[in-house]
């Protein structure tokens, strides 16, 4: 059994775990009572989509998806910092 067929057998077990986790994060993001709950759920979902995109880069044998993962991780951090700045001082600023 070659390494490639072992990898595709592994993906049959791992991809449903990630998709179920994304659905549960989306439920929390839609029903979150305060705005910080929504931002926390979107933040976790962005970091996990970055990890899932790295797995898909190996799955599809493409190097383009992994550069989008770096951008997505940095964007989630930027979302946190901007929302925190807006909640504390009522403005975003420069």
């Amino acid at each position, binding site marked *: 059994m070659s390494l490639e067929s072992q990898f595709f057998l*592994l993906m049959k077990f791992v991809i449903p775990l990630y998709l179920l986790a*994304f659905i549960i994060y989306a439920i929390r993001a839609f029903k979150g009572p305060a705005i910080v709950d929504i931002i926390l759920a979107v933040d976790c979902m962005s970091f996990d989509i970055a990890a899932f995109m790295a797995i898909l880069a*190996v799955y599809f044998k493409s190097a383009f998806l992994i550069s989008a993962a770096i951008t997505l991780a940095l964007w989630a951090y930027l979302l946190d910092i901007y929302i925190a700045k807006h909640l504390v001082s009522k403005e975003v600023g420069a």
Partner: protein
Amino acid sequence: MNEILFYIGAIMIVIGGICDLFGALGLLKFPNFYIRLHAATVGTIGGAVVPLFGVGFLALGSDFLPNKYAIAGASFVTGVIVLLAAPAGAHALAYAAHKAKLVTWEPKVDHLAEVREND
């Protein structure tokens, strides 16, 4: 050697998937925002950093990828970025929620409010 790197990466990806599912369940079931931050840490560090390093090891050990060094290097860089950015962002959100008084909760101790009243 290649097989050892491949199996280490596969085990880390499986651990990441399980941590991701448990972090999502905790984020759904826990009662208020400050307790949900704990589940968010499980979901980001266990569910994003560990499988990113796992993808790096798996891509280094695989023999079927055409550009495995690009995928492995970018996976390690993304893992380090998430490892640094996720706790900083979660801490900024917790500070902002406490300062803007957005969350109703019943604290046993609140050291941040005590320090701020003494200032």
